[in-house]
C-alpha cells in the first residue's frame, strides 16, 4: 500500500492529466446536452412537431454516454499506456460507440414507426414487420462497421448481402408494386376505411379493410371484393365519402317475374269484352292494364292499355279507345275499382253507340292472367347512397315490383321505396317526393332515372 502511495506521489501528473481530460469531456458533454436540447426544443416548438418528446427521451442518456466514451478515448490517448494497449482500447471504445448508436437508432426508429403508423389503418398490422426490418438493417450495418474497426474483411459479406437483397427483390417482384401502391394510397389518404367508392369498371361498395397489398370492399350484393392496390391505384375511383344515415332496417330489393297464363276466354266485340271483364279476376285486369308498361317499356310515349289498343285497332272504336287510354291506373286504389271504371266506360259507350262491330278472324281479344313469382335479389341498401347504387343495377322487373305491384296488386299504401324511406330513414320529405311520381306517365327506365335523380339531389 505504501509503495502504491509512493508511486502515485511520484507520477501524479501522469494520472491527473487523463482524469482531467475525462472530466472535461464529461462536463462539456453535460453542458452541450443542455444547450443542444434547448435549441432542439425551441425549434420543435416553432414547427410543432409531435415527435419532440420521443427524440429527447431517446437521446438524453446516450448523448452523455457518448461524451463519457469520448472522455475515456481522449484520456487513453493522452495517457502513457503502450501504443499497443491504446489501439486495443480505441477499438473497444469505438465498438461501444457503434453499439450505442445502433441501440439509439433501433429505439428511435421503433418509436417513430409506432408513433406515425399506429394512426394509419393500412400500416397498423405491418408495424412489427417494419420494426424488425429496421432493426435487422441497423444491426447488419452496425456489425459491418464493427468488423471494419477490428480490421476484418467486410467486402465478401457485403457482396453476399447484396446478392441476397437482389434475390429477395426478384422473389417479391409481384408484391413490391402492391406494397408501393399500398403505401401511396395510405399516405395520400384519398380513400379510407368506411368510404363508399365506385371503380370505373362498376364495382362499388364500402371499404372494409385496407392493407399493403389489397383493398377490401363490401359490395351491394353483400359480397367481399378484394382489389389489388396495383389495380386500384391505376383505376379511376369515385369516392362518395363516409356513409350516410343508416336505416333502422335495411331495404331488401325483390324482383318479380311474370308468367302469362291463358284463360281460354276471348272476345270478338264490345259486348263480349265488357261481360268477360265484369267477371275477370284481379290478375287478368292487372295483366291487361300493366303488361304494356313492361313489354314496351322502351317506348315514349308508351302504348295504352290492352283494352284501349284493341278497341281502337281491331274494332275501330277510336273514341272509346281514347277514353280507355286516358284512364290513369294511378288514380284508382284497387284493381277492382279500376276494372269497374273500365267496364263503366265501355258500357256507357255501347249505350250511345249501338254498333256491334266484330273483330276480323285472328284479331279476337284473348284474356290473359299474369302469374307473378316474387323472389329476393342479392341487393340490400342500408342507406340512401347504397339505395342509389342498387337502383342503377337492378332490373326493371325489380322496379316494377316495388312501384306497381306493391300498390295495386299487393294492396300496400304506397310504393315500397317511399314506405322504407319514411319508416326506416325518417325522411318524410323524400318519401313524399317519390310517392307523388305518377309511374304510369314514365317509361320504366325514365322512372328509374327520376327516382335516382330525386334521391341524389336530396343527399347532396
Amino acid at each position: 500500500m505504501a509503495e502504491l502511495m509512493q508511486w502515485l506521489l511520484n507520477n501524479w501528473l501522469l494520472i491527473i492529466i487523463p482524469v482531467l481530460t475525462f472530466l472535461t469531456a464529461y462536463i462539456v458533454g453535460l453542458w452541450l446536452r443542455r444547450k443542444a436540447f434547448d435549441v432542439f426544443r425551441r425549434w420543435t416548438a416553432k414547427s410543432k412537431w409531435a415527435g419532440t418528446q420521443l427524440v429527447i427521451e431517446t437521446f438524453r442518456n446516450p448523448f452523455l454516454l457518448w461524451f463519457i466514451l469520448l472522455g475515456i478515448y481522449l484520456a487513453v490517448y493522452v495517457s502513457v499506456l503502450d501504443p499497443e494497449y491504446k489501439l486495443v482500447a480505441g477499438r473497444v471504445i469505438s465498438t461501444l460507440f457503434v453499439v450505442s448508436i445502433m441501440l439509439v437508432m433501433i429505439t428511435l426508429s421503433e418509436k417513430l414507426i409506432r408513433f406515425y403508423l399506429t394512426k394509419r389503418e393500412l400500416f397498423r398490422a405491418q408495424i412489427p414487420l417494419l420494426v424488425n426490418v429496421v432493426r435487422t438493417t441497423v444491426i447488419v450495418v452496425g456489425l459491418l462497421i464493427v468488423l471494419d474497426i477490428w480490421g476484418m474483411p467486410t467486402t465478401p459479406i457485403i457482396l453476399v448481402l447484396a446478392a441476397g437483397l437482389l434475390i429477395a427483390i426478384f422473389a417479391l417482384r409481384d408484391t413490391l408494386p402492391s406494397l408501393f401502391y399500398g403505401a401511396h394510397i395510405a399516405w395520400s389518404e384519398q380513400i379510407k376505411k368506411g368510404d363508399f367508392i365506385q371503380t370505373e369498371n362498376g364495382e362499388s361498395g364500402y371499404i372494409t379493410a385496407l392493407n399493403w397489398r389489397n383493398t377490401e370492399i363490401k359490395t351491394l350484393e353483400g359480397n367481399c371484393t378484394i382489389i389489388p392496390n396495383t389495380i386500384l391505384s391505376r383505376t379511376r375511383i369515385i369516392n362518395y365519402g363516409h356513409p350516410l344515415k343508416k336505416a333502422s332496417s335495411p331495404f331488401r330489393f325483390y324482383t318479380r317475374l311474370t308468367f302469362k297464363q291463358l284463360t281460354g276466354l276471348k272476345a270478338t266485340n264490345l259486348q263480349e269484352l265488357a261481360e268477360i271483364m265484369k267477371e275477370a279476376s284481379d290478375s287478368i285486369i292487372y295483366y291487361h292494364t300493366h303488361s304494356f308498361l313492361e313489354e314496351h317499356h322502351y317506348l315514349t310515349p308508351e302504348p295504352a292499355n290492352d283494352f284501349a289498343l284493341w278497341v281502337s285497332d281491331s274494332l275501330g272504336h277510336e273514341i272509346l279507345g281514347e277514353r280507355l287510354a286516358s284512364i290513369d291506373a294511378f288514380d284508382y286504389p284497387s284493381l277492382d275499382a279500376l276494372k269497374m271504371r273500365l267496364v263503366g266506360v265501355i258500357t256507357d259507350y255501347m249505350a250511345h253507340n249501338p254498333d256491334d262491330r266484330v273483330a276480323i278472324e285472328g284479331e279476337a281479344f284473348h284474356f290473359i292472367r299474369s302469374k307473378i313469382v316474387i323472389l329476393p335479389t342479392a341487393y340490400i341498401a342500408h342507406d340512401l347512397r347504397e339505395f342509389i347504387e342498387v337502383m342503377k343495377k337492378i332490373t326493371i322487373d325489380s322496379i316494377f315490383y316495388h312501384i306497381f305491384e306493391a300498390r295495386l296488386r299487393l294492396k300496400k299504401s304506397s310504393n315500397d321505396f317511399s314506405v322504407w324511406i319514411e319508416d326506416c330513414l325518417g325522411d318524410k320529405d323524400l318519401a313524399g317526393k317519390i310517392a307523388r311520381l305518377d309511374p304510369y306517365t314514365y317509361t320504366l327506365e325514365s322512372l328509374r332515372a327520376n327516382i335516382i335523380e330525386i334521391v341524389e339531389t336530396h343527399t347532396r
Partner: protein
Amino acid sequence: MQENSNKQSKSKIQDYEPIVGRSYIEELRLLGDRLNNKVIQNINSTYIGGGVAEILDHMVPLVNQLGVDMRWDVIQGNNDFFSVTKKFHNAIHGIHENITASDFDLFIETTQKNAEQIKLYGDIIFVHDPQPIALIAQKETIGRKWAWRCHIDISSPDETVWNFLHKFIVHYDAAVFSAPNFARQLSIPQFLISPSIDPLSDKNKELPIETINAVLSKYGLYQEKPMILQVSRFDRLKDPVGVIAAFEMVRKNIDCQLVLAGGTATDDPESEEVLKEVKERASGNPDIHVLLIPPGSDIEINALQRAATVILQKSIKEGFGLTVSEALWKKKPVVATGVGGITLQVKHKFTGLLCHSIEGAAYSIRQLLINREYANWLGQNGHQHVKQNFLITRHVRDYLLLFLSLYHPDDVIYL
C-alpha cells in the same frame, strides 16, 4: 329411347350479359337455385331437324349452366308411326287427312313400346308436341309433374284427331302454347311461352360489313339500291307472288330491288312448284332476285337481313313467324300481315307495320322507303321489343317459371 349426351351449346349463359344485363342473368340464377333439386326431362321425337330440336339444343345447356338438371330424351318409332304423326300434325292445322282406326292403334302401340323402354326419371316430365303425348298414361303409375309443350297451332283442328289427343292432354298438369290464338279452352292450366331467337347464333350475331358485301356480291345484288327482303321457304302460305305484286306497285315510283330468299322443304312436294311459279313471275324484271338458299346458310340469311332496307313477311297463314323477330333484332323496319304469332312481334305503328292486303303492303313499304327516320324509329323499337320479349334468355326464364309454377298453383308465388 335414346338419351342425348352430346349436346354442346356454343354460348355460355354469361355471354348474354352484355345483351340483357348482368341483373337479368342474376335473376335467372336465382330461379335456377330454386330448381336445383329437380330433374327436368324433355321428351320429343328427334334430336336433329325441326324447330323443337333446335330450341332444345340451345336451351338444355343454358338451363344446365344455371344449376338445373335438365335432360333430353327422344322416343323411337318406325316410318309408319311418323307417317301417322305427320297426318296428325296436318289435321291439327285443319288440313283434311284420311286417318283410320289402324293409325290410332299404331300410335297407341308405339307409345306403349316407348313406355316399356323409357326411363322416366324426371321430377318434371316435359313432353313436346303430339308424338310422345300418350306417355302421360304413365302418370297414373309414377306420378310426378307433367307438362305438355305444344309448338303448333291447335285453334282449328280436325275434330277426330283433336278428340283423340284431348283425352291425353287433360291428364297433364299444364299445357304451354306459343301464342294466345294457338290455344283452345282446356280444363288444365295453359301458359303462354313464345319461342325465341338466339342473338349469338350465326343467324343473328353481328356481322362485319365485308361479310355482308361478299354475300351481296355473291348473289349479284346492288349495294346502293334499297332492298326489300322476304325470307321464307317457297310456300303459297308465304304469298311470294303477292310480295312480287306489292313490289311492282312500289317500284313504279321508287328505285329499289326485291329479294325473295328461302329454300324448298323436302317434305313439301309443292314447294318446287311454287319456286318455279315465282321465278316465272319474276322473270324479265332485273330488280327481282329469287334466291334459293341451301339449308344451314345462316350467315348468308343474316347478311341479307342486315343489308335489307325493309323486311317483309306477307304470310297468309303463319306459325309464330320468328323471321320477324330476326328482322326486328337487326333493327330493320318490318311490314307483315297480322297472322299467327306475328301480331305478338309487330305492334302496329310501334314496332313495325301490319297489313292485310297486297295494296296495304305496298303502301307500307313506300312509307318506310320514303320516311327513313320513321323506319329507323320502328327498327329501333323493334330491336328493343325483341330484346325484352323474344330472346332465348326470356325463353329460359319462362321455362324455369313454368317448372316452378307446377308446384305453386297460386297467382302470386313467393319464393
